[in-house]
């Protein structure tokens, strides 16, 4: 039975999640790069929205959610949305049109490869980026999405809890981002020249739009306008606030001053971390998750990255990869059946098994994403090259990849 309230809420949520990629991510990442690369960086977010929207309709949705093949991937039976219509699919959402579930999930498929772009910002060749994104979505996102959320997927069968995509979205993209950063190498001059964000107001705007859109991402994942959506909404806002406060407090203590960039980064880390837990935890648990998110992500970004000397330019791994992992594991600790009867109790509520299942889900996704991304980049490097030439990198990607520039000096 289609419920009009549920349908309205998921329609709005779909638009909210779309907004996270462009403008949210586009502004967030665009402000963080140097001025010669701002358009190229925003282009990557904008482009992925267009590209994966088409991929999803043609084969992405079918591979992710179509009839199960060996618990690993969906079949191509729903290629071009064949058989996906107005009638609800009770495997996924019993009260909204199947097509609406499809387009809601599309926006998740869109933002996931978009998150990776933070790792190779300011040096990736655009043509290679296009092919990489298409293949990564097909070979990494679609299978992992099927494992965790697809009917028949092996992690779903095992009982892995991932409310809105801590594993599927943030962990898969974050860990792949680390492989990208390692394989592309550092930006020219990294560590020698300062590379400050060129426009922090854009970063703050982007972060705030992400936060706003995240209500669609997490509360929308209830797939109904009900109490669970409200619970997830509150967990989301609570974790983001707690994480932003924690990040700024750490800075205040260690560096002397709290910064708006720190606040924005902390909020995004908190949002990424609470994503898998949003529909399973109480507001107090969400607060704990937010605090943990900033403690761990700050360490990853400010200490580990510098020690290991990789250039994860905009901290796609440090925030999303690390945050997604922490969140998926903390779901195994803090989940409560009282909050969501469809979920399970976590370790702290007497169910050790759930934590083990979460560990397996995280480990399997990490291993698969590393191997698949590594092979994909090796092949693309041999066929088309991953990086722009040194000269193009120095001049900037806006001019060399797109023949346009963001700011003029006069007028």
């Amino acid at each position, binding site marked *: 039975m289609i419920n009009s309230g549920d349908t309205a809420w998921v329609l709005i949520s779909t638009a909210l999640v779309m907004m996270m990629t462009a403008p949210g991510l586009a502004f967030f990442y665009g402000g963080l790069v140097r001025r010669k690369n701002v358009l190229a960086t925003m282009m990557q977010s904008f482009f992925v929205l267009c590209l994966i929207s088409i991929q999803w309709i043609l084969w992405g949705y079918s591979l992710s959610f179509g009839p199960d093949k060996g618990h690993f991937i969906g079949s191509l039976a729903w290629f071009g949305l064949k058989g996906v219509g107005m009638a609800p699919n009770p495997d996924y959402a019993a009260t909204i049109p199947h097509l609406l579930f499809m387009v809601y999930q599309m926006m998740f498929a869109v933002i996931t490869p978009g998150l990776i772009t933070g790792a190779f910002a300011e040096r990736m060749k655009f043509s290679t980026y296009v092919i990489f994104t298409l293949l990564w979505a097909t070979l990494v996102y679609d299978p992992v999405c099927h494992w965790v959320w697809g009917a028949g997927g092996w992690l779903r069968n095992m009982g892995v809890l991932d409310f809105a995509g801590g594993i599927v979205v943030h962990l898969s993209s974050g860990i792949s981002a680390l492989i990208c950063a390692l394989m592309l190498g550092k930006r020219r*001059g990294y560590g*020698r*020249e300062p590379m400050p964000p060129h426009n922090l107001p854009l970063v703050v705007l982007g972060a705030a739009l992400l936060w706003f859109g995240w209500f669609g991402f997490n509360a929308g994942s209830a797939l109904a306008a009900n109490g669970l959506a409200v619970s997830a909404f509150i967990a989301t806002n609570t974790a983001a606030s707690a994480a932003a406060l924690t990040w700024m407090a750490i800075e205040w203590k260690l560096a002397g001053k709290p910064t708006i960039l720190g606040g924005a980064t902390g909020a995004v880390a908190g949002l990424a971390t609470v994503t898998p837990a949003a529909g399973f935890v109480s507001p107090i648990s969400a607060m704990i998750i937010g605090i943990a998110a900033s403690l761990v992500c700050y360490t990853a970004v400010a200490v580990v990255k510098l020690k290991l000397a990789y250039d994860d330019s905009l901290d796609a791994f440090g925030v999303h990869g690390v945050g997604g992992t922490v969140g998926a594991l903390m779901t195994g600790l803090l989940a409560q059946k009282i909050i969501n009867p469809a979920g399970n109790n976590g370790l702290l509520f007497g169910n050790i098994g759930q934590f083990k299942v979460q560990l397996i889900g995280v480990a399997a996704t990490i291993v698969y994403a590393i191997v698949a991304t590594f092979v994909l980049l090796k092949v693309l490097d041999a066929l088309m090259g991953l990086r722009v030439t040194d000269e193009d990198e*120095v*001049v900037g990607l806006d*001019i060399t990849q797109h*023949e*346009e*520039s963001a700011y003029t*000096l*006069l007028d």
Partner: protein
Amino acid sequence: MKLIIAIIQPHKLEDVLQELDKKEIYLKTVSNVIGCGRQKGQTQVYRGRKETGNLLKKVRLEIAVNENYVEPTISAIVKAAKTGGIGDGKIFILNLEECVRIRTGEKGSVAIG
């Protein structure tokens, strides 16, 4: 006393600053400018229309120095800013009549360094 004005490629600024630091030349003013030399303008495309601007973005350095620092300054800039391509820029050396340090009122060579 001389005033050295150098027009260089924007992406060479970091290298030039480092080279000047090595020669212990720390006092300078840097500004964004646009200008044109023999280098052709950059082509940009907006909604299908190609536009070639004549003026290109450059960076201008102004450095006031005493006589014994003139050569080190020039050689540092040339060394760091040279790519060998058209558009590397120019250095102008001007006689400097007077220099006043605002804080103390000192004048001349003492005020410059």
